[in-house]
């Protein structure tokens, strides 16, 4: 029996290493678009968001947007690195945006209740501005925080594997934290 040819042996594909800098640019452009819309259409853009919150569609829309952007970013990073997506990262990206957006929606509800319970002037406009701020912060959190969690988990995993196979050369090649 002949030995298997080394050249034909398939090299294992490395897994996707998420870098926050890749995600940061996309979120930055999204932020600038949001800011541009706020400046260009100060009333109509705000009214669309406020009315969709009143109709109960805002949270679902934010979840869909955050999930879609997260998935596109992860696939793009995997494609660019020619790396294999991991189940853990995919699970995080499927689960965390929903948790973050849902949590922030309940936080918004609390802020609105707090505003309405106070005897404040110009109440409607105040509530509208709170909704606008939470929409923006919720979107950014829903996209950025899952990648931050994945990054920290990957770093933890790399540190653990470095400890297990302790050698100076492997320690030197450890992953960065950003």
């Amino acid at each position, binding site marked *: 029996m002949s030995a298997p040819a080394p050249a034909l042996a398939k090299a294992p594909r490395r897994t996707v290493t998420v870098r926050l800098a890749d995600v*940061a640019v996309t979120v930055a452009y999204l*932020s*600038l678009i949001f800011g541009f819309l706020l400046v260009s259409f100060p*009333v109509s853009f*705000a009214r669309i968001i406020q009315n969709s919150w009143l109709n109960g569609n805002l949270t679902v829309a934010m979840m869909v947007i955050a999930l879609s952007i997260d998935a596109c970013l992860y696939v793009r990073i995997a494609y660019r690195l020619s790396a294999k997506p991991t189940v853990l990262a995919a699970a995080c990206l499927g689960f965390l945006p929903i948790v973050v957006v849902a949590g922030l929606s309940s*936080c918004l509800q*609390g802020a609105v209740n707090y505003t309405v319970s106070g005897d404040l002037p110009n109440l409607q*406009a105040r509530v509208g501005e709170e909704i606008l*701020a939470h929409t923006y912060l919720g979107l950014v959190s829903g996209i950025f925080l899952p990648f931050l969690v994945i990054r920290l988990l990957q770093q933890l995993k790399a540190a653990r594997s470095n400890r297990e196979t302790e050698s100076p050369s492997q320690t030197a090649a450890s992953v960065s934290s950003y």
Partner: protein
Amino acid sequence: MRFGGFGALGKIMADWMSIKWLLWISLYLILAVFVPWATSLAWAHQHGSDLRPRPKQLFERGELGLVGLVLGISVIWDLLQSQYMPQTRALGSVLLAVSGTMAGAVWIETYCRHSTGMRSNPERAWRDSRNLAFFVFSLAVVIEILLDRFAKVTAS
């Protein structure tokens, strides 16, 4: 509840006064990026050196991340002074603090790698610090626009 009238913000035309915050934040970029770069050129000219560093070379250890951190801190201060509800202020502050810390971490890690003789990649440090500083900058711009709108609502 309907948001049809919208009180003091009841104008359809663009609210370009919010752009003033862009100019204010641009001061950080001028003082933290342009001035050090111009100073390095002036130093080279004064000492008759051929040194012509580009911003990329000047900030190759991730110093732009520190600029992002400082910018984040100043916007957190503005946010905490506002009359937004505590939940909104806390959320915005935490988000700015996390992104600013991650931007600052680029410089810290590059410094640690350099000091301990580990392999470091200036190209990557520059790119990561630039991207994260841009992220903090965009967050700061939008939060300042939101603060400006909210100040108009509370003043009316």
